[in-house]
């Protein structure tokens, strides 16, 4: 049996940040990293750019090949975690090897959530979560004439743009009334949708697929209004969810993800979880939520690594703040915080038809809840600080809406330079 003082499962942002945090405090303790991927670490976020050809597949790795040996980390690729025995501090890998640990981090990420559409098991379809997925999809995009993308989230929209640029007829089907509803309101999404439509994509929002059936070229997509769309490339991009089968029979508490406290500890001794597989406190409501975004994964990984190594500098998780950036057809959109309008909140909106820009600011009791821009740049990191610090913006709201970049920087200069 192999023994590691620190066992990290996963190899993306949360796992990598945890490794560097552990090594910052404990340069010597034995550390093993197990990943089901066969490659060096990369980010799921970069994959749409591999599909588009913007990123070369061999240039997306987040660590150099000698990084792990230099950090004295046993990098065990190509094997997943199959079973956990927290009562005796051990875990079994898919190659049958059992690893005993002193401290374990579950940073196993998430896998595509396959929608339960009748017939989906009978047709060929793509997903986009691994580099292998990306390379397969890239080849298929080049050959596709008629593509259907299920899901108007970030993965689906990026892929749809690639398909449009590749010359295919593209149909995007989204159940929600507008695309990217996790980050943007209808107006912002409308500007994004308009760019897609102008570039030749077909957008079917508020619609659902009721059935899939195989045809010679690929699949026939049956929509809820009876319309049928034939496709040679079907991409399902309807979100992700953690694969937690390895928890079966263990007492590790989980819901949509693995439940963690503000130090990323699970309910079980010596086991931490971070990143897309973790369900951690939300900054705004305080509930435990899934916040499967890159900056949160990195932050949670850092906290978990520091906590595992006993670093006295560890600070409690501030809570997840949704953040995202999205670029489309040469334009950009940025979302920081939440757009919902709870009691006591107010919103300000500024829109420019000619520049096709949009800015929406939501405050509650003078405190920033969310700021959303399309073609309107502001420092997202500064806005996030304004949210986390609960800075009173009551007197600056007009300035913030008129010039979020300068106003944000003024607050920065005063409060945390």
């Amino acid at each position, binding site marked *: 049996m192999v023994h590691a003082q620190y066992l990290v499962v996963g190899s993306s942002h949360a796992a990598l940040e945890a490794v560097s945090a552990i090594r910052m405090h404990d340069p010597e303790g034995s550390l093993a990293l197990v990943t089901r991927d066969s490659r060096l670490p990369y980010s799921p*976020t970069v994959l749409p750019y591999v599909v588009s050809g913007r990123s070369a597949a061999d240039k997306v790795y987040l660590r150099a090949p000698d990084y792990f040996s230099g950090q004295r980390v046993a990098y065990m690729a190509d094997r997943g975690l199959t079973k956990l025995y927290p009562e005796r501090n051990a875990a079994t890998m898919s190659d049958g090897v059992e690893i005993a640990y002193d401290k374990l981090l579950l940073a196993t990420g998430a896998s595509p959530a396959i929608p339960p559409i009748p017939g989906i098991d009978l047709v060929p379809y793509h997903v986009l979560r691994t580099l292998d997925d990306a390379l397969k999809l890239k080849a298929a995009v080049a050959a596709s004439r008629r593509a259907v993308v299920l899901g108007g989230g970030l993965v689906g929209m990026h892929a749809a743009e690639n398909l449009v640029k590749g010359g295919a007829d593209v149909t995007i089907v989204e159940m929600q009334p507008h695309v990217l509803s996790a980050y943007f309101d209808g107006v912002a999404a409308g500007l994004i949708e308009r760019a897609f439509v102008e570039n030749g994509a077909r957008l079917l929002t508020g619609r659902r697929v009721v059935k899939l059936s195989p045809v010679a070229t690929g699949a026939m997509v049956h929509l809820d209004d009876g319309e049928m769309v034939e496709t040679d490339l079907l991409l399902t991009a309807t979100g992700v969810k953690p694969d937690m089968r390895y928890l079966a029979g263990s007492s590790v508490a989980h819901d949509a993800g693995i439940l963690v406290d503000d130090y990323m500890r699970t309910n079980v001794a010596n086991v931490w979880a971070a990143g897309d597989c973790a369900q951690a406190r939300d900054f705004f409501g305080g509930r435990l939520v899934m916040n499967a975004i890159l900056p949160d994964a990195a932050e949670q990984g850092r906290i978990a690594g520091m906590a595992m190594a006993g670093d006295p500098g560890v600070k409690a998780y501030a809570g997840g703040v949704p953040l995202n950036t999205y670029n489309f057809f040469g334009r950009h959109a940025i979302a920081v915080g939440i757009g919902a309008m709870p009691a006591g909140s107010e919103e300000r909106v500024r829109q420019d038809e000619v520049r096709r820009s949009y800015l929406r600011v939501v405050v509650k009791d003078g405190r920033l809840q969310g700021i959303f821009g399309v073609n309107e740049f502001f420092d997202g990191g500064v806005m996030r600080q304004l949210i986390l610090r609960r800075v009173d913006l009551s007197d600056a709201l007009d300035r913030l809406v008129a010039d979020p970049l300068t106003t944000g920087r003024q607050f920065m200069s*005063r409060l945390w330079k």
Partner: protein
Amino acid sequence: MGQSYATIAFDAAKCDGCLKCMSACALAKTGADDIARARIQVMPTNFRFELAMCRQCGDPKCVTVCPAGALAKDGESGVIAWDGDRCVDCLLCTVGCAYAGIAPDAVDGRVAKCDMCDGAPACVSVCPTGALRHVTSARIYNEVGDWEDMFAPGLAGCQGCNTELLMRHTMRRVGPDAVLATPPGCVPGMGSVGYNGLTGTKVPVFHPLLTNTAAMLAGVKRQLKRKGREVTAMAIAGDGGASDVGFQSLSGAAERGEEVLFMVVDNEGYMNTGMQRSSCTPYGAWTSTTPVGRESKGKTQDAKNLPLLMVNHRCAYVATASTAFMEDLYGKLDKAIAASKHGFAYLHVYSPCTTGWRFPTDQNMEVARKAVETNFVMLWEFSPGDGLHFTHPVDAPLPVTEYLKAMGRFRHLDEEQVRHIQAKVEENRAIIEQIATKSNVA
């Protein structure tokens, strides 16, 4: 030893908003002076000017949130480098950075950030007010880490002793080809000369009398030179040993132009033997021989200005220094070592004493810095060719009370005494300024 890095420091209080830094940056980085494209953004806020620029963080969040591996901190230069080939323009770095240090270029839309201009920042070179400074003292710490410490570990200085710090730094720079003289005082007292038959110093060291340090060292140097051996003849002496009974031999060696480097560690009294006053003790200070009671209120005479006396010997090099300004100190040390190869070099280092001056042991640098910021101590250098000039002029000094209240030895001062000290600071400043002006014209 971890790597330290150069940095660009910004003092908003000194910025007048001329925006020359932004033009210079834009020109250097984009070829045109469109300030919107500058990697340094200086913004007028309410009556002040502040900065949005990459801090080259030690723990850079932009790097951790980059999905494409396009940002990385260079271990050698400390600069966070951006790789345009790998960057996918996703802007996640701008969400990661809390300091507005990376943002899209106004023209090409790709993120842009400060790259420190390969060690010669264009913004700093055009700043007319000194608000921007390129701080390179990290170089010293990186180099010092590689030099051999010429003293044994575990010298018995007081906790927080400035003198130990100073002598270790100094002898690291001077190196092993040296002979060291340490007359009675804290330097031998903490074990550099030795105890129980052992020495705490890794170069030949001797313990002259207070009275004959400079004479003995000059003789040793002459004999070694006669034998064809090239060494730095170095004295590390206290202010008492130099300004009181040792002054005759010091003055004589300086007048003869002996090839010696004489460093005075000025802690303003005989601290090693129980904190008696010396001729370098300032007016009003408590010492064990200038006590504070019903009649006596500390020293009643002003301090002798020993470094100015050395200027009047026309030494090859004379300078004052402070451990709170290490870059300045190291520059002077290099010049003093060079000058000692052909004449008498004199370095006067103001060295706060936690035990004798009555301040907490973690406050040494703060006290040393306050001395300079109030002009109680002035940093300057002199050589016969270049005259005297200030190396760290303080044009808007803090009131001297900021310095005095940092320690216990001045706690008893009444207003009259404080006024006397403030007047003395201004008088000293005027005298040195006059010498500086006159000697530079000459």
